Structures are given as C-alpha cells and as structure tokens.
C-alpha cells in the first residue's frame, strides 16, 4: 500500500488561472472588479448609472455573466462601453477560465477598469476567484435584513457593499443601521455605500470610490 500526502486545493485549477489573470491585470495597470449580488439586487442598474462617471477617469470594459440571454450586455453596450456576454447555460457562477476566454474579445492592454458582473447568486461565486482586486456586492433593501447573516461567506469575502434601492426605505421594514452592524460583524474592513438608482442618491460617492481605486491601481502598477 502506498500513501501520498498532499495538501492540494481542489479548486487549484481555478486559483492558478485567477492568479495569472491578477498578475496580468497588475502588469497592465487594470483594476478588476467582481460585481456580485442576488438576482434583481441591481448589479446591472448600478453599473449602468455609474459608467458615464467612470469613463471620465479611464477606459473600461465589462464582462457580463448570466445563465442565458445577452440582455445585460445590451444595456451596457448602449452606454458605448466594450462588453462581452458570457452565458453559462446553467452554471451558477463565473470562473477564472471563463474570464480568461472572454478577455480574448477585449483590448485588455488599454484597460484601466474591468468590471465583471457575476451571475446573480449569493452562494457559489464566493468560492471562485476571478483574478479580481475588489469584490463589490450589491445588497438591495427589498431583500431583507437577514441576508448578510444567511449568506455570511459572500459578505465576509467582499470589500465593498452597496446597499441599493434606498428610495424604497419609507415603504419597507429594512434597517440600514442593522444591516451595517451585521455586515461589519462579518468583516470589519468592509466599506458600505448606500445608493438609489432611481433618485441618484449615493451614486457620485460610489463613482468616486471606484475612481480612487482605479487611480491607486494605476499608480501601484506604473
């Protein structure tokens, strides 16, 4: 009998590709963002609203992930931003290989910012690195206060939480204070920004946050 001792990460393949991607983003001075959240949280809407502001600070491109349709890519295309739609055909998260393949269709050398909008899902994407620098998770107020604690891994691994649809606060039973408390109990390094795509509140702040991150990445990698 023979025993082989390993400590092999089962997701090693994905992590190796993610690391290669991250290295190439650093070489090119590109900030890569993994945009996460439930279906309907407002990932595409928030992105649509801040794209114009982000474009002022550099060149950007988007990779859209969905099971089916190119509906989200069409919305981004209407903003005159290069976009690639990845359809997983059933897969509930994007992985690093899919990003690597999608980048073949974009001019990656020229990019200051790459936003990858992940499949709507608060579970699986948490485990799959895409080579990103920032994980931005959208949590909409209509999803309820219990979501951070029900999906702790996703929120623990995020860098920025965007609390969306705050214009609806007068009509629903959601406490922003409680949400912030729960979120920070999972990860006390989290930044939290409240926005509304309907009224525009908070979007300038969000744009500024991401623009600062882009500038920092550009300086780091110069």
């Amino acid at each position, binding site marked *: *009998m*023979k*025993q*082989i*001792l*390993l*400590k*092999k*990460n*089962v*997701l*090693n*393949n994905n992590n190796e590709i993610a690391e290669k991607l991250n290295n190439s983003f650093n070489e090119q001075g590109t900030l890569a963002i993994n945009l996460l959240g439930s279906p309907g949280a407002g990932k595409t809407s928030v992105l649509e609203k801040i794209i114009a502001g982000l474009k002022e600070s550099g060149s950007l491109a988007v990779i859209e992930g969905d099971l089916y349709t190119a509906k989200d890519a069409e919305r981004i295309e209407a903003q005159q931003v290069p976009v690639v739609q990845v359809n997983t055909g059933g897969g509930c998260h994007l992985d690093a290989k899919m990003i690597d393949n999608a980048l073949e269709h974009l001019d990656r050398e020229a990019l200051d910012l790459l936003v990858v909008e992940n499949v709507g899902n608060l*579970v*699986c994407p948490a*485990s799959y690195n895409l080579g990103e620098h920032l994980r931005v998770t959208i949590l909409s107020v209509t999803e309820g206060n219990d979501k951070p*604690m029900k999906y*702790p*891994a996703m929120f*623990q691994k995020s860098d920025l939480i965007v609390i969306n649809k705050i214009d609806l606060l007068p009509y629903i039973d959601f406490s922003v204070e409680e949400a912030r408390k*729960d979120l920070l*109990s*999972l*990860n*006390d*390094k989290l930044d939290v920004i409240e926005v509304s795509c309907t009224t525009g509140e908070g979007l300038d702040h969000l744009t500024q946050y991401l623009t600062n991150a882009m500038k920092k990445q550009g300086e780091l990698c110069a």
Partner: protein
Amino acid sequence: MHELSIVSQMLAIVEENCREHAIRQVKRLVMAIGEFTCVEKEALRFAFDSLSPDSIAAGAELVIRSVAPKAFCEGCQQEFSITFTEKNCPTCGIRSQKIVAGEELHLESIEGEEENETDSSEKECTE
C-alpha cells in the same frame, strides 16, 4: 455549493497523482473541508458515491475532515477559534480578520495499491 463539481475536480487530481505515483487502485481518500466553505458533507458523499464508480477511486473510502475556522492575532501571536461573526482574540479582545483556517477545500491524502504490488508493506511519500 458545488459538491458534484468539487468531487469531479478532486477525482481528476486523484487520477493525475495515481499516474505519477504508480497507484493502480485507490483505497482511501482524505479531504479537509473548512467550515467557512459552506460545503455540505452529505452532499459531498452523495457526489462521491455517484462519480467514483467510474474512476480509479471506485470502492474507496472517503474520509472528510471538518476544519474549524481560526484567525490569527498579530498582537498576541496566536491562533484562536472564530465564527462568522465572532472574531475577537480571547486574550486581548482585539478583532482579527486574518483567517488562517476554515476556508480549505483540500485533498489531503491518497492511499492505494501500487501497480505490480506483491507485498502489503506500507510505503509513504510526501508531495
């Protein structure tokens, strides 16, 4: 989570290592699964039972070792147990977000019969 996909990738790692180390039949596999990964043990077993019969691990025993989450306190230079929401060092009370255990999805060991094995003496090699 993707218990089926995890087992599928795990079996690919097993096949590769068995080729490399001339193992012809796997008898035992040990996995370390961190509690923060939210991988369901029973679902993992179910996936293994479904996929392993067509692999070199057919009939093998799957041992799943759960790894409790821990963080590291820089001030006290010690590891301590944590939960998703409780991450304060028991000694100094300061919170640490430096997670050192609990996020593993590791294949730890493969035990099997070598090709052309004539005796049952155990050999061990480390990667």
